[in-house]
Structures are given as structure tokens and as C-alpha cells.
């Protein structure tokens, strides 16, 4: 088995085209994507979004506020306990949580600043800032929509005129009805914010890059590395079809070794090459773009190993299923591009519609990218269930694909040899 793997490695090293596809092209693409992603922090547009909301005020007014948020076409409110929501943000399950702090109802009645806060993952800063903008109009208009506008406006006018001359304060009070009507009309037209009623949504970062890494860089290296790895392992897997075409598979089958060992040898060599490829890509990004990996090497190695296992299983699976190189090339290009698109290799997931984000879990890319974010961005500790879950998903995908590859290898490849 090891002998078979060593033979494959030797052939790989002697094949300059494979070396080029495995190492040089991915490095060029990482460079390209790293620059391209760098300009995307402020881009994008909002999409329907499931917003976790922790209502710590728990009053009829805070409930009414949540109901009003829920009427927004862009949002679906998901009530959630604070700790659960914050944990979700820390582990990358959610981008943010909207917290309605105690005192919300009192502030509405008294015309004070509404204590509403968005706690978020800085990796999702772009998405969350767009979300914040969509929340502000509802927040500003809430005093009007909840029947507390007069109090709120009165209080606001008093505060505005607090230090002004007595005559001005008296004049403002006398002109209150006119001012209130203006603001009320403004609220209908969405311009009440000009008077500052309702306040702003406070933004607090919950997950910061402890590694000092830039989110765009982590996204670029993780997304590109996995996509390129998938392409290159397909090439390695296709070696199986080459062996069939060149007659060496038949000779391997004539040898006194169990047939499964032929496939296992291919899997081992694909794994070794995959691990080498990922390691080189990360080392390159670390040296050239300053990706911080020190202090996270164990976690990183685990993600690399799990990702390499899942990706190489995909390559071997395709080679075992397909009956010709042409078939593999067609199938692999299609599947890899789809997986890369839905899995977040080509663009961050938050740019995609909600349903696309849900089906992302079907791709190897998604789990691998999450694993890299766990280590390089969220800096989750090794025993963290979220991190282990991402690794387990990769191992499960790899094992299922390897099992299927073995089945199809026995049925298709061996028969054809």
C-alpha cells in the first residue's frame, strides 16, 4: 500500500504539469483574489436576513418593537436568549445579535435614547453595517408608531433648548405643536431622524481578530486554497483512469495485493499531495501577505489534514465514478465551480441569498473555510465543539466519498481493466 503511494508520489514529482497546477497556479490565484477581496469591504447590498434578537427589556413596548422589525421585508426576527446568541456569534453561526436592553420601554416613554445594541463578529462587519442601516428608520420612528411621540418630542426639545436663552425656550414651547406636526410628517416620510428621536443602534464588536489577521485575507486564502485543491486532486484522481488506459491498472490487479489497496494507495498519495499543497499555499500567504499562523499551528494542521482528506476523497471518488478522463473533467469542473460558489470560495457567504447560505453545507468548501476561520479568525480553542464539528463534517464527507469510491472502483474501474 505504502509502496503504491510512494510510486504515485514519484510520478507526481516528475510530472511538471501537475506540479504547476498544484502549486504555481493556486499561488497566482491567491494573489489575485487577495487583491480583489481587498476592495469588497464596503460593497454589497442587503438581503433577507434572519436577525437574532435578545429582548432583555421584555415589555409590551419591546415586543412591539420586535414586531415592527419583523414587518421589514429585509428581515426576519428570531427571538433568542442572549448567551445563546452571543455564543452563536463567537462560533460563527450568526453574524450578530440585536440586544434590546432593559429600560427600552422607559426610554420610549420618556423620549430618551433607545438602548438598542448590535453585537457582531468583525468578520461580518460589512454585512452587519448594512443591517444597522436598515434598522435605524424603524428605531427612529418607533416612538411615533407606538403612540409616545409627543412625550419624546417634548423631551427632545427641552434637551435641545436646555442651555438656550429663556425666550428661546418659551418660544419653542409655544411652537411645540408646529414642530411636532413637522416631525410627525417627517416620520411618515422617513426623515424623523433629523431630529434625533429614537437614537442610534449602538455597534459593539463581539469577535475581534485575536490573530491580527484581516478578514479579507483569511477569506481569500481559505476560499481559494480549497477551490484550487479540489481542482488539483481531481487531476490526481484521474491518475486512476490513466492507469486503466495505459494498462498498468490491469497489471496492478494481477499482483498479489488486495484490490482495495490499489485505491487506498491512490488515496494516500492524494492526501499527501493535498496536505503539501495547502501547507505551501498558507506558508506563501503568511510570508507574502502577513497571514498570522503562529500560535495556531496545531489547529491549522488539523484543518489542513481534514480538508485534504475530504478534498482528496472527492478527487478519488470522481475518478472511480467516471469512465473516462473527459467525463471526469466535465463533472469535476461543474461540481467544483458549484461547490465553490455556494460554499464561499468565490465570495463570502453573506453576499448570497439565504437559501444559498443554507445549501452551502453541502459543499466541502463551506466546512473547510469555516475551519480556517475557526483557527485564523475566531481563534477557537482545539476542544471547542464548534471547531471539532467543522473538522468532523470534513472527515465525514471524506469517509463517505472514500466508501463510495471503493464501491465504484470495484464495480467500474476493475471491470473495465
Amino acid at each position: 500500500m505504502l509502496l503504491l503511494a510512494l510510486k504515485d508520489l514519484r510520478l507526481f514529482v516528475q510530472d511538471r504539469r501537475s506540479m504547476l497546477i498544484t502549486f504555481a497556479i493556486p499561488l497566482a490565484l491567491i494573489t489575485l483574489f487577495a487583491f480583489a477581496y481587498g476592495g469588497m469591504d464596503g460593497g454589497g447590498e442587503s438581503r433577507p436576513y434572519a436577525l437574532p434578537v435578545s429582548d432583555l427589556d421584555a415589555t409590551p413596548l419591546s415586543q412591539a418593537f420586535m414586531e415592527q422589525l419583523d414587518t421589514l421585508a429585509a428581515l426576519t426576527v428570531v427571538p433568542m436568549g442572549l448567551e445563546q446568541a452571543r455564543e452563536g456569534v463567537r462560533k460563527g453561526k450568526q453574524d450578530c445579535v440585536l440586544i434590546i436592553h432593559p429600560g427600552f420601554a422607559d426610554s420610549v416613554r420618556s423620549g430618551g435614547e433607545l438602548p438598542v445594541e448590535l453585537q457582531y463578529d468583525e468578520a461580518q462587519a460589512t454585512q452587519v453595517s448594512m443591517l444597522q442601516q436598515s434598522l435605524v428608520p424603524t428605531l427612529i420612528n418607533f416612538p411615533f408608531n407606538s403612540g409616545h411621540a409627543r412625550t419624546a418630542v417634548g423631551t427632545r426639545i427641552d434637551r435641545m433648548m436646555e442651555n438656550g436663552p429663556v425666550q428661546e425656550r418659551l418660544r419653542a414651547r409655544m411652537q411645540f405643536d408646529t414642530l411636532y406636526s413637522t416631525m410627525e410628517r417627517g416620520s411618515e416620510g422617513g426623515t424623523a431622524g433629523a431630529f434625533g428621536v429614537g437614537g442610534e443602534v449602538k455597534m459593539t464588536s463581539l469577535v475581534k481578530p485575536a490573530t491580527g489577521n484581516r478578514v479579507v485575507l483569511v477569506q481569500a486564502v481559505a476560499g481559494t486554497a480549497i477551490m484550487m485543491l479540489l481542482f488539483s486532486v481531481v487531476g490526481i484522481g484521474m491518475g486512476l483512469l490513466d492507469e486503466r488506459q495505459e494498462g498498468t491498472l490491469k497489471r496492478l490487479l494481477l499482483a498479489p495485493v488486495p484490490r482495495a489497496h490499489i485505491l487506498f494507495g491512490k488515496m494516500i498519495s492524494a492526501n499527501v499531495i493535498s496536505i503539501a499543497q495547502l501547507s505551501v499555499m498558507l506558508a506563501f500567504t503568511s510570508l507574502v501577505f502577513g497571514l498570522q499562523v503562529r500560535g495556531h499551528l496545531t489547529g491549522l494542521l488539523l484543518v489542513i489534514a481534514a480538508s485534504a482528506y475530504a478534498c482528496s476523497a472527492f478527487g478519488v471518488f470522481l475518478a472511480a465514478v467516471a469512465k473516462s478522463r473527459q467525463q471526469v473533467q466535465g463533472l469535476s469542473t461543474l461540481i467544483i465551480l458549484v461547490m465553490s460558489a455556494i460554499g464561499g470560495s468565490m465570495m463570502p457567504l453573506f453576499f448570497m441569498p439565504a437559501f444559498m447560505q443554507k445549501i452551502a453545507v453541502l459543499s466541502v468548501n463551506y466546512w473547510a473555510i469555516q475551519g480556517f476561520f475557526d483557527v485564523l479568525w475566531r481563534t477557537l480553542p482545539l476542544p471547542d465543539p464548534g471547531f471539532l464539528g467543522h473538522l468532523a463534517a470534513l472527515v465525514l464527507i471524506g469517509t463517505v466519498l472514500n466508501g463510495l469510491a471503493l464501491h465504484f472502483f470495484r464495480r467500474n474501474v476493475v471491470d473495465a481493466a
Partner: protein
Amino acid sequence: MLEVSDLHKRFGEQVALRGVGFSVPKGECYGLLGPNGAGKSTTISILSALLPPDSGRVVVAGHDLATEPLACKRAIGVVPQELALYNDLTAEANLLFWGRLYGVPNAAVRERAGELLRLFGLADRRHHRVGTYSGGMKRRINIAAALLHRPQVLLMDEPTVGIDPQSRNLIFEVVEQLHADGLTIIYTTHYMEEAERLCDRIGIIDTGRIVAQGTLAELKDASRLTGTVDVTYAGEPAQVLEQAASFWPHVHQEKGITHFLTPGGQGDLARILQGSTERGMDIRAVAVRDVDLETIFLHLTGKQLRD
């Protein structure tokens, strides 16, 4: 050394083998002779444990193939019909890999690879990549790769297909050397001269059956043929064949020459000439040949080996 009995194999509706059986004692070179599609390669595939038979039994060096496939594989060396080598590896690296795959220890496989490279006249190119070799050189390495583990039985499936005369002669010499060393060899071919030159006994296989087997002398005796009378006629070949068949039961045509298979020696020549004259056939040339394997094959199967 090799016992094959009543092998049957179907591929869907197509029947490939219909009860093939033969026995090869130690040290014998047994030729399996038949045209393309006769069942030679299917038989070799079953003997080498690549294909399971639908029924029948194979025993190699005392090991039953059905119950001890790995032991049988260790006892057998197979030279596949197609070249099966890694073109990007050197000849030596190829041999070392295949030898190790059969469990030959490192030192032994190195020594054996060197021996075989010398035997096949490739020692000076051992470090060249196989991809740079000529077809004949590749064929030689293809055979050498089957000998690294010193098999007890060597299965050679048409090892000289598509090679130059020089390499073919070298392969003949190597097979003769291996045979002289006592190796048991099963040699499939559709070249008469190879079977005649190399094999102690020959099995003639056609449409999945062994239609006759024995030494060349035994086959000649069994065929009851003494030779052929080859006649060149003027006129339309199809019409000539029809006329010839009207007075002679075993006749066929190839490249404008009509071959009469003759059981009766010189007396047959007179009868053939008389029959031709009676039918007004215009004879241009006549030749008489002794019986050979090709004649026997034609007589037994009604077709030529290279049909």
C-alpha cells in the same frame, strides 16, 4: 503445474468460453493458438485471477484459484498483451516497483532486475525513462516485469504483437531460455510460426472451445492431412472457388490462390488436376506443400488464424 478444467464464461449474451480444459506439466511450454475472439485472452484473464469463471476449476502449483487467489497470483507471472509500464519511470524503477509489489525483498529485487535487464539486452539503458524506449524495448521490459518474483508459471498473452523482427527474435530467444531453465509457460498467439517454434504442445482454441491439442506431430496425425495443393487459376476468384468446392470438400482461397487440403498425398494432386480440367478451369500454377499448423487449424475450424 497447471490444471484447467471445464471453464465456462459468458459476457451477457456472448459466450466466451464453453468448457475449456487443459493440463500443463512442470517445465512445458503450452501454446494456446486461435484467432482473435477465440477465447485466448479470456482464458488468460481467468488463469491470472483477473476474471472469475462462471464455472470450472483452475489449480496453479497446487493452489486452487477459487480459494487461494493470492497464492496463485504469487505462483504466476503474467505478461499482458498491452504494454503495462510507467512511461515516466526508468526501466529499472519500473522493475523495482513491480518486483516489490510481489513482495520481493529490496536486495533481491535489485539483483533480479539487473539480471533481467542484462538478459533482455537493456542493461545500458536501465536509467532511461521507459517513455523513451522503442516498442520492442518496451515489450522486453513488459516481459521482464513478469519475471521479477521468479514465477512457477509464466502466462504470456500474445507478447510479440506489434514489434520489430529484431525484438521478436530476442523475445523468442528469451522464451526458449526460460523454457530450457524449466519454467512452465502458457503462450497465446495467433502466429503459427511462434507456436511451432516455441511450444511443446499446442491447444487450438476456437469459439471458446479447445478443438484439438497435442504436439505438432500429434495434431498432424489427428488431422489426417498430408499437405495442401495450392493452385492459381485464371478467372473470377469467386467463381473459381465455387467450381473447386464442387469436387473437393476442403478448399479455401487466399490472395487469389486456391488451397486444397489433401488427406491422400500425391494421389490427391492427380484428382485435383482432373477435377479442374473436367470443369474447364484454366490452371496457371500448382504447388504442393506439407501439412503445417495453419493447414491443421484451417481444417479443424474452417477459418484462417488471421480471419
